[in-house]
């Protein structure tokens, strides 16, 4: 029996045009997902610097997810294609260093996919919860 239920901290970077709108739609349709997910709005998924992801882990995030428009639908034509390459390379590197691969994810969520947004977040929170606290990319100084 767990006395203190473990709550992960999830940072979600959402592109302004598709995924942030998809998150809004999830809200409009009252599709629940855990409050552990905190969304940061960026103009495009390609605005997400690997440094931001590492920063989130340093500061205590247990999972980081990047959401953008579906490939081919980027508001800026090609931004998410770069995201796709960058994150494929970065995630593979994190895995190479022994960081749990389930802690990072890229998901394409359109403005019409409120349900997918909620489902994605529920699934991601569940996977990260199963992993437990982020120990491998933590900065002890930032622990409360």
């Amino acid at each position: 029996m767990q006395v203190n239920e473990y709550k992960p901290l999830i940072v979600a970077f959402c592109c302004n045009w598709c995924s942030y709108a998809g998150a809004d739609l999830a809200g409009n349709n009252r599709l629940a997902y855990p409050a552990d997910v905190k969304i940061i709005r960026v103009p495009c998924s390609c605005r997400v610097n690997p440094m931001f992801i590492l920063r989130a882990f340093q500061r205590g995030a247990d999972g980081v997810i990047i959401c953008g428009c579906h490939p081919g639908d980027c508001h800026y034509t090609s931004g998410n294609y770069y995201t796709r390459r960058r994150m494929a390379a970065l995630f593979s590197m994190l895995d190479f260093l022994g960081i749990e691969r389930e802690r990072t994810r890229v998901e394409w969520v359109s403005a019409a996919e409120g349900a997918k947004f909620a489902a994605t977040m529920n699934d991601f929170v569940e996977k990260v919860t199963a992993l437990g606290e982020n120990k491998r990319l933590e900065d002890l100084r930032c622990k409360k």
Partner: protein
Amino acid sequence: MRKCSLDKLNLIFAEIAKDAALYLPADQTDGSAAYKKWEEGTALSDALNTVRSPKDFFFPQTEDLMKFKTQGKNIDIIDIRTALEDFVIFGVRACDVKSFDILDRVFLTEPVDSFYASRRSHGIIVSMACTRPSETCFCKTFSIDPANPAGDVSAWKSETEIFFEANTQKGEDFLNKISSLTEECDDTLVATQKEAINKIMDKLPLKNLDTSAFGGGKTNELFDSPAWAELSQSCLGCGTCTFVCPTCQCYDIKDFNTGNEVIRFRCWDSCMYSDFTKMAHGNNRLTQKERFRQRFMHKLVYYPENNDGLFSCVGCGRCLAKCPISMNIVKVMKKIGGNKSE
């Protein structure tokens, strides 16, 4: 003088580790040696020396100084200093022992650096004579005798035995603690070893490196030497020499905001870095030549000028081995010092 068989060395380590943290050079996976905290099974390395110098024990690469915490609009300042445990550094070479003197003159003169002082007072240094110096060694240039290392306790290791001699009260106490494992002996064997070491010292390629061109008062003579430009031309501006150097003591003070509090800490800095001692008005050394010159002028001129002629180099040879472009203090001394040092 006391001695014990090498078989019993592990017992001595266990004994020491009972009431003090014991650090000694141990082999790492990459083949080099580094100071490790002793635990059952840790073996003393046969390497001549560690890549990182033991200055870390008194002057670690990063050290928290204090914390700030904001409560609403108020700031609390938190003193984070805690009582240190005693610790023993075992197997320090003569050059590195000497480096502590050089650091002491910086950190223990007024205003005393309380962090350094605290660590220094809790540390016991057990030195170890060098039986197989390297071609990069030139400690003799700075009148350091690797056959007679200083420290609280000096030690000599032969094929089968290890010999101890206390140099300070701390050292006496230390030897008393392990007296049941050691036995009193004369210094005949040690004297033979010293003699052998001295013979090797005479064969070292850098044995004639001399310092007569340097020292206090030489600033004007050396500062504008055209050789600085040539020597520094390939310097990458990395910090390898300063970070492996046992006597480099510059640090930067920085704040780290954890989100909940601010940690003020210091960390090693390198005069080779372009933003070293950057001030409001900008940098005071603008080119790599000036930064390069600073490092060697400091070691060979400025420091001795302020410290009774004591050079702040101990000839350990680390920078000779580790500089990515193989530029180092020996090449500087030979070039800047002219033929005199040949």
